[in-house]
């Protein structure tokens, strides 16, 4: 909670250009509210995560109650409600990856980073997650590192990946 109460480093407001993009997105749907998820993605890219202040701000853009936006943000796994690390390493622990050794991969990453799944390294470099099926089971075990899928993981490959994250 302390993180949320501290002053945000970026002011919670979109630029004029971004507001134009919000209006464009809203015009794509028969009801402007259809653009809520895409605009929340924009908010997260802009502000780093979706704080309560960001929820309230987005609510004003849609004429929705902050409670509705909060309900949406908390329902989905890809919206961060606290600032994540500069990189997010999401290791799949569903069945195909499990059969291919995901528990060992996850343990290895935890040891290397000195954190549990769901935590961020103290230097703010990496957030580690254990996630459900990312649908790349042909290359299990696998993980999503930021936007990229990293396939056929081994402890050595995890080491190289983590070293590459700054």
């Amino acid at each position, binding site marked *: 909670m302390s993180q949320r109460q501290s002053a945000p480093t970026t002011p919670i407001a979109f630029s004029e250009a971004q507001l134009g993009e919000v209006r464009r997105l809203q015009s*794509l*749907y*028969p*009801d402007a*509210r*259809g*653009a*809520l*998820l*895409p605009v*929340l*993605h924009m908010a997260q890219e802009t502000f780093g995560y979706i704080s309560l202040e960001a929820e309230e701000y987005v609510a004003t853009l*849609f004429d*929705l109650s902050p409670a*509705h936006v909060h*309900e*949406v943000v908390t*329902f*989905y*796994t*890809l*919206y961060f409600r606290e600032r994540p690390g500069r990189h997010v390493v999401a290791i799949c*622990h*569903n*069945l*195909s990856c*499990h*059969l*291919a050794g995901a528990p060992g991969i996850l343990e290895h990453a935890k040891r290397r980073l000195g954190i549990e799944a769901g935590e961020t390294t103290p230097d703010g470099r990496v957030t580690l997650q254990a996630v*459900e*099926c*990312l*649908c*790349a*089971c*042909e*290359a*299990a075990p696998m993980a*999503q590192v930021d*936007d*990229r*899928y990293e396939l056929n993981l081994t402890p050595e490959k995890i080491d190289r990946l983590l070293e590459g994250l700054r």
Partner: protein
Amino acid sequence: MTEIVLMRNFSNPDSHTLGAYRSAGGYAAWDNARRMEPAAITEEMKKSNLRGLGGAGFPTGTKWSFIPKTHTGPVYLVVNADEGEPGTFKDRYLLERDPHALIEGMLIAARAIRCTHAFVYIRGEYVEPWRRFGAAVKEAYDAGLLGRGLDIVVHRGAGAYICGEETGLLSSLEGKKGWPKIKPPFPAIKGAFGQPTIVNNVETLCCVPPIITRGAAWFAGLGTKTQGGTRMYSVSGRVKKPAVYEATVAITLRQLIEMAGGVSGTGRLKAVVPGGGSAAILTADEIDVTMDVDGLKAAGSMIGSAGVMVMDESVSIPEALMVLARFYAHESCGQCTPCRESTGWVYKMVHRIVERRGHKDDLDTILDVAKRGGGTTICAFYDGAIGPYISYIEKFRSEFEALIPHA
């Protein structure tokens, strides 16, 4: 040797581009279909015996014909690209390697149902497929294929398995949490934004152009009496060559495992999940089943999304159930009490069994709760959870009992 229909363009490294798609004969089906009466397109789908490839296996032409004939307002086509069923990865390949096949299928489907505004809901984690598909949509607009009768909006989800359920997907598309809705009314009557809506899976729509080009009879002839075509099987787990394989829907599970190089690990098969995490497990003696909708139904399981997960003899079935039970506990949307409560408790119980802390009556409690909860919830999610709960325990009960003290 099965004819390759859906993966026909995959070997071309530029297969995702409009130029490559066109030079392989792409958009010729649309040229034909735009001169056909909408009802004639739907009729062609019915004759082809195409059935939905996302999970439910519903006949596609029949679904399209449910749009009320008297409706004068907008009709929406929504593509379910929220692939998330454990063990399934076929739609990722189609979005990345043949996005124009989906766009062409959408053009034809939209004409059949008289839709001018379509949405493609892509799971939030699929960043690369989303970029690839978005680029293809832009190419199609620039070429005048889109924007003259059909507009496509590419919509990114935000991480929730339940949004793969069609009414949950529609809630999410409307800017809400992805809570499923009670049916009826079915989406074809009252769907996205309150209007008649057809929700189709990516792979299903990719079958549409070849059906128009080569005819319904040809497509029907590729499959069984009640289901036409080939489909893409995602094969993973303990096989030598995990990959996506295209084959007729009439292939047997045994043949499919052979296609994937046979069983790895100990080399001795123990069990197979034939249709994604929510399908009932089959034992090594049950793999001479055909991989069509009705074949697996008769075997007490389901083809679902055709995600095949293979387990050799060294795999612990209780551990496998624990992993899936964790998934269902995590992904239950929380709307219906039987699902919200049972998925959490079943995970805790299977977890303690795996940790050798299980109670004597845990297995019977899980079976009792699972059997009484089936069919009591708004959507099929919980029915999908009890498939594994019941089948893993009933078919491998002694393996669970061996872990329970004083069982």
